[in-house]
């Protein structure tokens, strides 16, 4: 128990802060912060597996998050039949062409020796393939995007419950990670960082501009939810009864029936949003718990020990007969898949998919700040980092406002300097993140909850 004291204390403080927000601001805000904290926690777990367990830098988190979101759209949106009729066949043909290109390149790579001729051959295959793709897909894409462009204009999805997308998102992200890993894992640390950063930008560019896939920057809105809708709840008998029971104390104080009815109505509306967010939080907690159990088990298994050995001394691990390349690829795929789950969770929670909102600051660098602040190599630390940094990210504005008012209290309300500062409050969060990261790296370089290695 004693050795877990700091973990318990850190989490208790975090919980206390969220409850404080609930009391001071509102429970709805507190719960949405909690939900996003949980999503961030899943992302940091993914990044932590890669960085903390294996020492791989992955600056492509944004790309995997977006792929998870894409999975949510492709799984839950009902298929657009018209679009499939006009362009579905050609798009399926395109998939076959891509598969054919990949296999013919593999065939050439296997069958022929490394010569200039082989390179030209591969280039020729790629170029003819691309021209073929362009010819097939061009008209199909045009006709798909022409199908009532204001509401659909894309192929749609499978029409399945959105919860499936959490798994599908993991597979999407894992598949991309497999390809990237095959290409880029041989690079040195900071090259890998830059390469993954750039590849994630390419992923975003594709999602943004291929409108037939998920409407691009026109966004997909109104995704189905795994939890009830507020409007439905407000008319349900059992829910109204529940609210009545919960607020009996306040309701009993009022004697006028009409007033009582009105108050109850308002309470029901308020509690319905809280209830929905509670449901989401429950689902997310379940995911985080399952992942935490799995990752903890993995960390203290022989496999986890091997990963640490590879991280700390690649050559020695290699000499001991461990396949470093294979293990790196495996962990790269696993970590990315977890990030993909988080991406799908986030889109599920928001109920909309907005490719334009994926920016590296928010989805790559912020997650890295979380991992480093929390403590890389320690799952509890990574999750705590997700909670603490996200909390600060959201609550930075009120804190900054308070500080500005405190330090400029000598100045008048209309002072230009003060007004300018108050107007630029949203950017103080960057300042806090930066200074926080620098301070942690300087004075507690292993994070708030550092990695603990059990020596046997």
């Amino acid at each position, binding site marked *: 128990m004693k050795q877990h004291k700091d973990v318990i204390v850190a989490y208790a403080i975090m919980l206390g802060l969220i409850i404080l927000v609930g009391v001071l601001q509102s429970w709805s805000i507190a719960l949405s912060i909690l939900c996003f904290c949980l999503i961030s926690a899943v992302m940091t777990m993914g990044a932590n597996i890669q960085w903390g367990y294996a020492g791989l830098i992955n600056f492509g988190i944004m790309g995997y998050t977006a792929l998870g979101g894409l999975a949510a759209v492709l799984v839950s949106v009902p298929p657009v039949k018209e679009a499939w009729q006009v362009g579905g066949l050609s798009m399926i043909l395109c998939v076959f062409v891509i598969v054919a290109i990949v296999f013919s390149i593999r065939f050439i790579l296997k069958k022929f020796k490394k010569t200039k001729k082989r390179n030209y051959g591969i280039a020729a295959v790629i170029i003819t393939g691309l021209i073929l793709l362009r010819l097939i897909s061009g008209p199909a894409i045009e006709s798909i995007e022409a199908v009532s462009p204001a509401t659909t204009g894309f192929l749609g999805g499978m029409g399945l419950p959105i919860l499936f997308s959490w798994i599908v998102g993991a597979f999407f992200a894992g598949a991309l990670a497999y390809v990237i890993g095959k290409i*880029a894992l041989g690079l040195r640390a900071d090259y890998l960082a830059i390469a993954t*950063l750039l590849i994630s930008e390419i992923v975003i560019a594709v999602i943004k501009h291929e409108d037939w896939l998920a409407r691009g920057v026109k966004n997909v809105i109104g995704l189905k939810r795994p939890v009830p809708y507020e409007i439905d709840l407000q008319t349900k008998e059992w829910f109204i009864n529940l609210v009545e029971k919960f607020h009996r104390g306040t309701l009993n104080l009022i004697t006028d029936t009409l007033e009582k009815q009105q108050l109850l109505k308002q309470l029901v509306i308020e509690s319905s949003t809280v209830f929905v967010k509670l449901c989401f939080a429950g689902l997310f907690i379940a995911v985080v718990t399952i992942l935490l159990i799995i990752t903890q088990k993995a960390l203290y298994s022989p496999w986890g020990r091997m990963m640490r050995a590879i991280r700390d001394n690649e050559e020695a691990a290699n000499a001991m007969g461990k396949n470093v390349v294979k293990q790196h690829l495996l962990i790269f795929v696993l970590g990315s898949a977890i990030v993909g789950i988080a991406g799908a969770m986030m889109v599920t929670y928001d109920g909309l998919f907005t490719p334009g909102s994926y920016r590296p600051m928010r989805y790559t*660098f912020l997650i890295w700040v979380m991992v480093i602040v929390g403590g890389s190599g320690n799952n509890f630390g990574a999750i705590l980092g997700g909670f603490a940094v996200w909390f600060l990210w959201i609550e930075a504005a009120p804190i900054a406002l308070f500080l500005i008012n405190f330090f400029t209290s000598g100045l008048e309300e209309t002072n230009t300097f003060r007004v300018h*500062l108050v107007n630029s409050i949203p950017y103080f969060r960057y300042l806090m993140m*930066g*200074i926080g990261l620098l301070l942690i790296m300087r004075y507690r370089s292993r994070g708030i909850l550092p990695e603990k290695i059990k020596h046997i």
Partner: protein
Amino acid sequence: MDFINAIVLLLNYIFVPALSYGSQLALGAIFVSLIYGILRFAYFSAGDLMSFGTMFTILFTWYFQSIGISLGVLPTALLAIPFAVIISILFTLGMDKVVFSYYRIKKSPPVMLAMVSIGVMFVTQAIVRIIIGPFDRRFFDGERFILKANEFKEMTGLNEGLSIKSTQALTLFVTIVVVSILFWFLNKTKTGKSMRAYSDNEDLALLSGIDPKKVVMITWVIAAVLATIGGALYGLDKSFKPFTYFNNMLPIFAAAIVGGIGNPFGAFLGGYVIAFSEILLTYAYRKFFVYILPESMEPNSLIQLLSTDYKFAVSFSILVIVLLFRPSGIFKGKVI
């Protein structure tokens, strides 16, 4: 005649814009490459250092405009750049003293320094946005064009016009001057040679009595100068927006790596490689083919290899290809 028209078309829409964009990237890539070579880490706040310098250029430009100083046909910003450079130098040296020097003395791994530079990136971004805001700003004044399309048409009697913006000419001129001074400095002066020695082999350089503090300080000074000038030129040519500058970090890194990271001359050329390939691959060649092909073969599609939306993707793809097949870059940088 048609053939000349086609050439002028390409000059106007590809060659001139790519040359000025490439110069702006090259200035950034050179300092990223230098920092990588001498301080040995990937400096992720490169784009934000550029926006920091540009911000002060704009502030000084506004100040000069308000007291009625201008350069006539030339933009006032040229007068402001030296002052902005001084502030940027103070900023980079201050950041080095407060943040980076600790890890350098401790001999932390490069990854650690790269992470630290992300912290610096957050801070720089915050400073820029708090002082000047996240909005799009134009600060160009003076004569807009050196050669207008209409004038060119009248002069030559061609169908196609060739226009050269004064900012494009200015970019090229300033880049040539700055880069020549820089390479003269690196290749001919004693300090420059000691920097290259330090970059090649740190231990050997230290043994031969090179002062590491001086080398590091001069690296940061050069970085600040190049970042401010490059950023200000980009802002004059297009416009200043902090988010765009942050994004420019990506093609700049691409240029530095393509050119062979740690090799400033490679980075210089890498800037042009990236700029030209971006514009060449996303330009719609329809008009060009209309001019050079006989009428019966005129194309009816745009003949565009990639839509302009994928402009960024082009530079990244080049980077990935280079990383895969020639990790030391086209012009042999550090072998990694």
